[in-house]
C-alpha cells in the first residue's frame, strides 16, 4: 500500500513540475537557513570536551590594584571582576597542590624552528608551553609517540611534541619520534606527533582569538622558562616591572592560564580552600591587596562567562527558524490549493472504494516526500554555506554538519513537511465525493 501511495505521490508531483519545484525549493531554503545558523551557534555552544568538561577547572586569583578592580569591557565598575590569568610565582605555588589529579599552567609564545634540511629557511611558529598533564586533560590525540612524562617536566628536559602539519612539513609525515628538532638556540627531542586535531574552540586558552587553530609546537613549561621565553599572549599588570626575565618571574603580571582536573565536588571544595589559604598567606606578606576573590571555574561555566556564543548568533538562529516557519506556511497554502484542485479525481477514487484514511495517507506521503526532498537539498546547500562562513570566521573549513545536526535537519524537514501537509491532507480526505461527481 505504501509503495502504491508513493507511486501516486510521485506521479502527482511530476504532473506539476513547476509547482513541485517551487514547493521543494521553499522547503530547501527554509531548511538550509535554519540548519546553517543553528549549526553555527551549536559549534560555539556545544561542549568542547564531552564527558570531561565537568572535571576541568580554570583558576583565577584577584591580585589586582587595591584602588580599582580589574577593568571589564563595561567600564571597570564590577568589583568582582578578576584578572583572567595568573602570575608565574603564584602558579608555581599552586602547582604544589596534590588535590588535582592533573594540572597544567601554560602560555603561548612564538618559537623559531630550524629545519634540518639545509635548504629550508628557519621560520617562526606558534608554540605552547605546557605541563605533560595538558595532553590528557584536553584529550589531545597522538599519531606517534605520546606526551612527555612528569619527570621531563620536573627536570626541564628538552623534549617536544609537534602537530601533524609540522611533521608533514619537517619530516614528510614519517614517524619522527626520537628525531632532533632545533628550536631557537637549543636541540629538542621529539617525543610525540599529534594526529590531525582541530577543536572548533581552543578551549584551553580563551583569553584571545579562541577560534584559532591549536599551536603546532608544544614544549615543557619549565624548559621554556629556563630558555627565558616570554609569554606572547595578553599580559595584564598594574605595578611597574623591571626589564629582566628574573623581574618578570617575580612580578604580579598575569599572563598564564592555569587549569586543574578535579575528581569530585569535594575535591573542588577543598581545592578552593587551598587556593584561598594560599592567598591569605600571601596577604600577610603584603600581596593580594584586594578582598579575597579566587575563582575555580568549570570549563563550561568559563565559556559561558566570557560569552563564547555571540548574541548575534542566537539572533540569526531565531531569524532563520522564523524563516523556516514562513516556508512551512507557504507549503501549506500551496498544497492546500493543489489538493483541492484535485477534487474530481479524489472523488472518483472515493467512489471506487478508497477510504478517507487511504486518501489522507496518500496526501500525507506526498507532503513528506517534498519535505524530505527539500530537507536533503537544503542540507547540501547548507554544507556549502557553512564552508563559506567557516572561511570567514576561522580562515579554515572546520565547521561541518555533525551527525547530530544532520539528524536534526532531517527531523526538522519531516516535521515541516508533516505539519505543513497535515491540514491540506485532512481537507482532501473530507471532500464530499457526491458533490464533485454530479458534474
Amino acid at each position, binding site marked *: 500500500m505504501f509503495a502504491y501511495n508513493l507511486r501516486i505521490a510521485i506521479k502527482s508531483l511530476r504532473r506539476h513540475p513547476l*509547482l513541485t519545484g*517551487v514547493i521543494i525549493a*521553499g522547503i530547501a*531554503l*527554509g531548511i538550509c*537557513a535554519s540548519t546553517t*545558523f543553528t549549526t553555527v551557534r551549536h559549534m560555539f555552544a556545544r561542549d568542547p570536551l564531552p564527558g570531561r568538561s565537568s572535571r576541568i577547572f580554570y583558576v583565577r586569583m584577584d591580585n589586582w*590594584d587595591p*584602588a*580599582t578592580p580589574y*577593568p*571589564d*569591557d*563595561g*567600564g*571597570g565598575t564590577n568589583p568582582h571582576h578578576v584578572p583572567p590569568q595568573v602570575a608565574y610565582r603564584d602558579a608555581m605555588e599552586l602547582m604544589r597542590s596534590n588535590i588535582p589529579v592533573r594540572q597544567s599552567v601554560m602560555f603561548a609564545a*612564538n618559537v623559531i624552528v*630550524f629545519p634540518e634540511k639545509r635548504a629550508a*629557511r*628557519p*621560520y*617562526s611558529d606558534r608554540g605552547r608551553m605546557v605541563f605533560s598533564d595538558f595532553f590528557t586533560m584536553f584529550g589531545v590525540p597522538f599519531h606517534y609517540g605520546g606526551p612527555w612524562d612528569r619527570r621531563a617536566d620536573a627536570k626541564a628536559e628538552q623534549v617536544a611534541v609537534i602537530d601533524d602539519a609540522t611533521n608533514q612539513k619537517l619530516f614528510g609525515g614519517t614517524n619522527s619520534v626520537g628525531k632532533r628538532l632545533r628550536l631557537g*638556540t637549543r636541540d629538542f627531542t621529539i617525543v610525540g606527533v599529534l594526529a590531525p586535531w582541530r577543536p572548533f574552540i581552543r578551549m584551553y586558552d580563551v583569553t*584571545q582569538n579562541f577560534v584559532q587553530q591549536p599551536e603546532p609546537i608544544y614544549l615543557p613549561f619549565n624548559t621554556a622558562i629556563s630558555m627565558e621565553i*616570554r609569554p*606572547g599572549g*595578553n599580559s595584564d599588570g*598594574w*605595578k*611597574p616591572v623591571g*626589564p629582566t626575565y628574573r623581574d618578570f618571574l617575580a612580578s604580579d603580571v598575569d599572563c598564564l592560564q592555569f587549569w586543574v582536573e578535579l575528581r569530585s565536588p569535594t575535591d573542588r571544595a577543598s581545592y578552593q580552600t587551598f587556593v584561598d589559604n594560599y592567598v591569605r598567606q600571601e596577604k600577610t606578606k603584603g600581596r593580594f591587596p584586594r578582598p579575597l576573590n579566587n575563582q575555580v571555574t568549570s570549563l563550561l561555566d568559563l565559556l559561558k562567562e566570557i560569552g563564547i556564543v555571540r*548574541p*548575534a548568533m*542566537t*539572533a*540569526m538562529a*531565531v*531569524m*532563520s527558524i*522564523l*524563516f523556516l*516557519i*514562513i*516556508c512551512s*506556511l*507557504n507549503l501549506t*497554502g*500551496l498544497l*492546500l*490549493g*493543489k489538493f*483541492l*484542485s484535485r477534487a474530481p479525481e479524489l472523488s472518483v477514487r472515493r467512489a471506487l472504494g478508497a477510504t478517507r484514511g487511504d486518501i489522507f495517507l496518500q496526501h500525507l506521503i506526498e507532503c513528506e516526500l517534498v519535505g524530505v526532498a527539500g530537507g536533503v537539498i537544503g542540507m547540501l546547500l547548507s554544507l556549502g554555506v557553512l564552508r563559506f*562562513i567557516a572561511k*570567514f*570566521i576561522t580562515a579554515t573549513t572546520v565547521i561541518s554538519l555533525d551527525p547530530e545536526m544532520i539528524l536534526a535537519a532531517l527531523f526538522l524537514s519531516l516535521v515541516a513537511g508533516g505539519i505543513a501537509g497535515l*491540514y491540506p491532507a485532512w*481537507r482532501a480526505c473530507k471532500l464530499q465525493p457526491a458533490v464533485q461527481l*454530479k*458534474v
Partner: protein
Amino acid sequence: MEIGPIVRALTRNRTRVLLIVLQIAITLAVVTNAVNMIATERTKMKQASGFDDDNLLWVFSRPFADSFGDRAFRITTTRSDVRALRTIPGVKSVVNTNFIPWQGGGSSGEVKAAGGDGSSYRTQEYTASPAFTDTLGVKIVSGRNIGEGDINDEPNATTANVIISRGLERLIFKGQSAVGKQFIEPDNSVDTIVGVFDPFYNPYGWPIHEYCLVYPGTVARNGALFLVRVNPGAMKSVSQAVEKKLLSVNDGRNFEMRTISEVRDKYFTEGRIVIMAMTAVIILIVIVTGLGIVGVTSFSVTERKKQIGTRRALGATKSAILRYFLMENWLITNSGVLLGILLAYGLNYLLVTHTSGVKLDWRYLIAGVTLLWVQGIVATLVPAMRAAAVSPVIATRGV
C-alpha cells in the same frame, strides 16, 4: 467599493486567509528586525579610526639569526629597516611602532596627572618613532610632535617626552591644554606631554578606545613592527617590494604582512556575517512569500472561476473583477500587516532582552509595510488578470 461581499467571501475561506495573514505577519516581523540588525551593524562599521586605513600596511619582521640577540644590533637594524622601507617607490611614510589599528586590542597602562587629584586613568600606550602621526594621517593639534631627539631607548629611563590623543587630554585635563603637563607612571617615572594629536580611535577590550599615549622609542624586542603608509593605489606594488627590501638589510628573519583594511575586515567579521546573512534572509523571504501569495491567489481564482463567470455574465466589467481580487488581497495584506507590527515589536523585544539587539526603528516598520503592499499588489496582479480574463460563457456551462 464592494467591500462587504469581499469580507463575506473571505470569511468562507478562513484557512486560506489565515495562512497568508500569518505568512505576511511573520514576514514583516522578520524583515523589519533583519533590516534593524543590518543597520545596527552598519553603524558600528561606520566608526572611523581617523587614520588612512586604506593605505596602511602592517609589516612584522621575525628574526631567527643569533645576531638579533643583541639589543643594540636590533635597534640599529630596525632603524635601517625604516630607512630602507622609505626608499620603496610609492611609500609615503614609515613608522616603527607596536601599534596596530583595528586589531581589537593593543597595550595599555595607567597614568596619573602630576599635581592632579591622584586618580589613575587607564589609556592605550604605544611606543613609536616620530613618524607616528604622519603615517597614520593624524594631526598634531597643539604643542609639537615627538622628534628624533626625544627617543631614549634606555630601558631604565625615568623621564620621557610624550604625545597624547585629544580624547585622553579631555578625559584627564577637562578642557585645559595638556601641553607642558606631566604624568606620573606607576613606577614613578615622569612623562612630559609635548603635544596632542587628533583623531584617534582604536577599539579595545575596555572602553579606552579614544585614549592614547605615545612614547618615543624603538620597537625591536621580539621582532620589529612597522606601519607603512603608501600613496593611493600603490599598495600592491609596495607590498610586493617590502620583503626583498628588508631582506637586503638583513636576511636572518622572516616577514609577516597585512594591510590594515584586512585587519579591519577581520575585526568586523561578525558584523559582515550578520549583514550578508540577513540580506539573504530578506531577499529569500520576500521571494518565498511572494510566490506563496501568487500560488494561493491562483488557486482561489481557479476555484471561483464559475462565480467569476457568473458575475461577468451579470454585467461586471473586467476591471471590476481585477479590482475585486486586488482589493481582497489588500485587505488580507493589511490584516497581516497589523498582526505583523505586533509580532515585529514582540520579536524585537526578545532580541533586545536575550541577545545584543537594538530597539526597532519605526521607520523600518513603515518601509516594511510599504514593501509588503507593493509585494501584495505585484503578486496578485498576474492571477487577478487571469481572473479578469475568465469568459462570462463559463456561467452557462455545467450546473
